[in-house]
């Protein structure tokens, strides 16, 4: 019971985002890509926000990008994050264009900067869900 109350919120995939989470479980970052205008978008929806086409498929992306902006939580909004503060929530702009909210791992919070190059890593929540997070790029 105790572990349930302190567990971080588990993503509850919507039907349209299920392929994203299925790919993440296999440690792949895959986003919807329009078959008409060939652009990626995020979060997953059933129509392309660039051209409104409904023809699309989930395609792997590079997993590389840069930090567009970020914030550092000092306040504990939910008990599950008490051990993590101060922690960084960042908006990462992928090289393919879309921006994703995420955490930045593997670097002290006060060394995170805008424009920093980052790459995806996966945080296994349980056997169903792995959460895409980012760390400083190796190269």
């Amino acid at each position, binding site marked *: 019971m105790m572990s349930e109350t302190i567990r971080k919120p588990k993503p509850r995939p919507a039907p349209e985002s299920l392929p994203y989470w299925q790919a993440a479980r296999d440690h792949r970052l895959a986003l919807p890509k329009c078959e008409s205008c060939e652009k990626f978008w995020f*979060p997953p929806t059933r129509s392309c926000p660039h051209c409104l086409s409904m023809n699309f498929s989930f395609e792997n992306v590079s997993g590389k990008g840069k930090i567009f*902006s*970020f*914030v*550092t939580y*000092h306040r504990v*909004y939910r008990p599950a994050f008490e051990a993590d503060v101060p922690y960084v929530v960042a908006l990462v702009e992928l090289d393919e264009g879309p921006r994703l*909210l*995420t955490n930045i791992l593997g670097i002290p919070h006060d060394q995170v900067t805008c424009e920093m190059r980052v790459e995806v890593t996966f945080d296994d929540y349980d056997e169903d869900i792995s959460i895409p997070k980012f760390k400083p790029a190796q190269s």
Partner: protein
Amino acid sequence: MIPDITPARELRDTCAIVGTATSRLGKVPGVSSLDLLVEAIRNALDDAGLQASDVDGVLCRGPDESYSHHQLLAERLGINARFSTTLTNGGASQIMSVALAVMAIRFGLAKTIVCGFGRDTWSRTHSSEEARVRNETRPESMLAREFGPEYGYFGATAAHAFGATRHMHLYGTTRDHFGEIAVAFREHALRNPDASMKKPLSISDYHAGRLIVAPFGMYDCSLRSDAAGAVIVTSADRAKDMKQPPVLIKGFGFHNNTRGWFADDNMVVTAAKQAGEAAYAMAGLGPRDVDTAQIYDCFTYMVLTQLEDYGFCKKGEGGDFVASGALRLGGALPCNTSGGQLSEAHCEGMLQIVEGVRQMRHTYPEHRQVKDAEIALISGHGGNQVCHSTLILGRA
């Protein structure tokens, strides 16, 4: 690109605000947001020398979970309303209700419309330990399903802090700049007996405040308040013979960066830019004509970036502009002269309209009055950070 529009100049100066008031502000335990709003409207009717039966339009925003809130409100006021609806653009709703009132009155759908908003946020979150815990540990089913909570991303503070970080990165803006905004508005609140915040705030107090979501500390964040405000709008013709000096509605404008706060450059160039341009065009005015600005100050940074977007200084120069002392009473552009949402009370932009009207009446004592103020600009911002509205008022 969205197509250009022709500004509705024919609406300029057709209507006036003839009554305005607030409810009790700050901590008003045991009173619902609807009761606070009724209190503000009753006070605004008194201010205007009107009865509820003189009103034939009701425009409001409710708590978001309240269905068709204007019905509940008009029932409390004991009136049937010709023109009545509930707006749902968050903190941009309050100005939009005033604009909608002007359009309705100008085109004969109603004669006298009350616009208002009330909230009981302090009571819901702070009136007891139980209320605080209930608010802060909401069940998982009330959180976003995905793409936020799993990363520990909660709340409007973080959303706006993303913009602050980006602005600091692009333009060298600092927490000293944000702090000057908090300090200036606190100084204004000390002149306002109705303001919640009673203690002086220095820049060192600001820096000593605990961090919430960096770069924001506690003094960058607006208050949680019980508060309501109301204004009464009627035609400029009818306004001539009423109890108060009429305050003319000279212009308004709207824009919604509905591609999202995180899209494009929306977190550093807000929809205040286009909303402001539209309002200036309707009013036939520009930023140099504005004598006082009442800016939606949910967070300090939002004041700085909106001042740039409204053209009071160039993009990226907001830090220097606020550091000059411009925002203080006696400065180049006195802002949030009642203390704002940072230090008076937070009513999602409604109190900024009330204060704009009061400054245009020239009825304040000298230490609160913006000297010789003829034009006030008011901003509203909300709806997941992307909905924006602008109102320009002037002395008749």
